[in-house]
């Protein structure tokens, strides 16, 4: 069956042409081929399954790791007129959930978290429906060599099998060749059609600068933004810092600044996103929670106030700049103390070796009985939530924890978990080291950044990097910004309702 894809694209999504890779991936799945697509951020990954969902009919299942990301995507799709879409998630209230589940077969696109997908009732329900396409978004989560390893992703191949093997599309923005191989192995589909596209951004210039203190970083940002006026994102590794610096910038700059992080109230989060999209804000100080659902095309400057824990996150975050193809710039600021921050993050995620030993000798005595509640374990052994989750999951994986009861905590098992833990530590440290190495590169930064992910790095269309021919001082964005007049409430109300004079 041949489809006139361009017409479908125009009629349903309003675009005149496909972006790089979209047509190829779409054609593959329409021909019933399983496909692994590595498409860089900002190239419209979601269109790759939205369009086939329309053409194929029936249901397209999209497995997505983050609820907030799913919910954002659904909102945007609905806003753009694509109504037959839903996200099955644990945050729905009862009436909404009932309505959605009752009408599940009426949706053409169903987003779901990997945990939810383990639900037997839902699986049976999906089996009775016509699932024509099975999409795995952020597919690097399936690989323990991926930077966001998610254990629930490992069970996906069972579901695919159970559903009678619908066409599978695995998508990711950042996956090294190792990870690509691992994805196919873990899905147990060795012959996926590979569609790999270069992720280097030809329209972004790179710079890294060392500062002596956080205050100096802020001064530097003020200096830059006084000279440049354009949509800007500043990434922080903590909520407190994002807020703190946003307040300072607001006082010291004429631009409109706001902060954004996961700890904000839902409505306020949405308002900030929308204001930024709507050019009511110039600068956003945010954590990595921002951006996933935001598709603003004209972001010109991305600044990292802190080091991301690995190159993959950095590449994704930088990739939010210049989606319209226009010139953009990435600046990373660091101090000598900064690498402690991600290190501490890793420490809080993974248990230490002697934590493991203490927990295991405790659990051995509990054999045949129930494991105490999570809170109890966390408190008794002074673990973080994710440290305990790590241990618990390993026990489950190795079959030593069945329905809350402990069976066969053998020395071999402990050794096995030990070994795995060591691997994770090593892995995370290596990732951090790559990041640290990159900030100290003295040759071409672009080359060093993208080389691990692709064979050849293309020539940029803008000045390259501070290792080549780019200087921050040369930067000059002077975009017109809307005036920020303080209206009376009456004027503002008129503006909202488009009433009366001047509108």
């Amino acid at each position, binding site marked *: 069956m041949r489809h006139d894809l361009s017409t479908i694209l125009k009629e349903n999504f309003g675009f005149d042409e496909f972006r790089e890779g979209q047509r190829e991936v779409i054609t593959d799945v329409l021909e019933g081929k399983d496909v692994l697509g590595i498409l860089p951020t900002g190239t419209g990954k979601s269109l790759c399954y939205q369009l086939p969902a329309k053409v194929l009919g029936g249901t397209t299942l999209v497995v997505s790791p983050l609820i907030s990301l799913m919910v954002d995507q659904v*909102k*945007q799709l*609905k*806003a*753009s*007129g694509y109504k037959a879409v839903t996200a099955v998630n644990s945050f*729905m*209230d009862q*009436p*909404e959930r009932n*309505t959605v589940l009752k009408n599940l077969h009426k949706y053409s696109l169903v987003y779901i978290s990997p945990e939810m997908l383990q639900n037997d009732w839902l699986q049976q329900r999906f089996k009775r429906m016509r699932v024509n396409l099975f999409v795995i978004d952020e597919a690097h989560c399936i690989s323990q060599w991926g930077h966001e390893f998610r254990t629930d992703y490992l069970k996906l191949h069972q579901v695919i099998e159970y559903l009678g093997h619908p066409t599978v599309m695995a998508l990711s923005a950042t996956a090294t060749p190792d990870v690509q191989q691992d994805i196919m192995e873990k899905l147990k589909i060795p012959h996926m059609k590979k569609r790999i596209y270069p992720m280097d951004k030809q329209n972004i210039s790179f710079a890294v600068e060392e500062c002596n203190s956080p205050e100096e970083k802020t001064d530097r940002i003020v200096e830059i933004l006084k000279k440049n006026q354009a949509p800007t994102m500043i990434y922080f590794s903590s909520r407190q810092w994002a807020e703190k610096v946003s307040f300072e910038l*607001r006082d010291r700059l004429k631009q409109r600044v*706001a*902060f954004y992080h996961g700890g*904000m*109230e*839902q*409505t*306020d989060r*949405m*308002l*900030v996103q*929308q*204001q930024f999209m*709507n050019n*009511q804000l110039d600068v956003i100080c945010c954590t990595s929670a921002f951006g996933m659902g935001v598709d603003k095309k004209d972001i010109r400057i991305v600044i990292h106030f802190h080091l991301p824990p690995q190159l993959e996150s950095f590449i994704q975050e930088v990739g939010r700049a210049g989606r319209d193809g226009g010139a953009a710039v990435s600046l990373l600021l660091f101090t000598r103390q900064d690498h402690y921050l991600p290190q501490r993050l890793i420490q809080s995620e993974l248990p230490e070796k002697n934590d493991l030993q203490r927990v295991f000798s405790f659990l051995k005595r509990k054999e045949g009985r129930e494991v105490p509640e999570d809170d109890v374990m966390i408190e008794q052994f002074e673990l973080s939530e994710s440290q305990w989750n790590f241990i618990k999951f390993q026990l489950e994986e190795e079959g030593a924890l069945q329905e809350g009861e402990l069976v066969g905590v053998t020395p071999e098992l402990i050794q096995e978990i030990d070994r795995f833990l060591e691997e994770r530590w090593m892995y995370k440290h290596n990732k951090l080291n790559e990041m640290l190495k990159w900030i100290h590169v003295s040759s071409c930064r672009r080359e060093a950044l993208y080389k691990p992910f692709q064979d050849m790095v293309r020539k940029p269309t803008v000045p390259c990097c501070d290792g080549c021919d780019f200087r921050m001082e040369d930067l000059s964005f002077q975009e017109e910004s809307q005036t920020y007049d*303080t209206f*009376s*409430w*009456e004027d*503002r*109300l*008129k*503006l*909202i*309702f*488009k*009433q009366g004079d001047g509108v």
Partner: protein
Amino acid sequence: MFEHLVLTCVDRFRGERTVSGIFHLLNGKRSSQTLQDAKGYELDRLFGIYPSLKREQLESHVQSLKDEGLIQINEQSFPSMTQKGVQRLASVPVQEMKYFDGMVWHDVIPTFVKRVHLLLQMMANSKAGIHHYVPIVDDFGTQQWVRTVYHQFQDKLPKMVGSMYEEIQHLLKKHPSIQADLFVYRLTGGGVIGMTMDQLKREFELNVEDVEVMLQHTYYYLFLESKKSKEHYPVLHLCTKGLDATHLITRSARKTYQYIQQGLSMQEIIKKRRLKKSTIQDHIVESALIIPDFSITSFLNEEDVREINKIESQLNTKKLKQIYEALDGKYDYFELRLALAKGQHAIKEGMTQDEA
């Protein structure tokens, strides 16, 4: 504004309730203690008007009121007014918070607000020709409600947009202008995105509690005015449809009430419901507070009620211990609470008769 609210509570509580009492009142805690406080100290209008208030927020304001010398706190941590506090309280125009009516409406105000925000976005966007947008209110029920309105009134929509503008404009003109500012700057629609709480606070140089209280007050104002007059405010009135006064009685208390109406004794109810005596007593007091014609003669005769209330007004206190002692332990605490609860209605009814 928030300070004024806290001072009002301290003033009315007359040094007889702790900061927790104030917190539960503003938060709208449904316990018979809080309900009785609200009625007894005539603070029922402020009941539940600030549901998102955190204890730390209140405590830090109490602290600064104390530092300013407006209130004092005794060693049992009961706050009371100082002379300076009384003066400060008198200096604020009552008009700025006169529309609060929490005991009756606090349950339905959030729904009203969500409807107004989403309906306004839908209408303003349709006027501006914006057809694709992210709804400002996430709540599923509200989205369904707006959808229904949209389908029901599709052909009248342009007229309704104009009306909604006029209604809001007209009502806000008669309202304190800072409160009007906050309300309008929070709105999203017609290509304008509303401000976050943090932005409002900075833009208008207020603290976040003031922003919240002023917004809430405006919501009550718009709600009450439009609920009253469908004729003048048809679109806002639509947003109040089906939102009725709350009968603030817990389900459990209602059950006890029903048993009493059926003629069961307290002992029988205790046995039947397998609840503690004190719980059943709470229910009875709660019923007496909320249901004006609830007869309590099986527990206390009219003369007793009168005697207790007389002592209460002589001593000029709501403190049960003092009343208990003044009556030499003639009545137990349950009887005292019940009599006082009943007494509330007598006062209220007297008042309305006078006003009429």
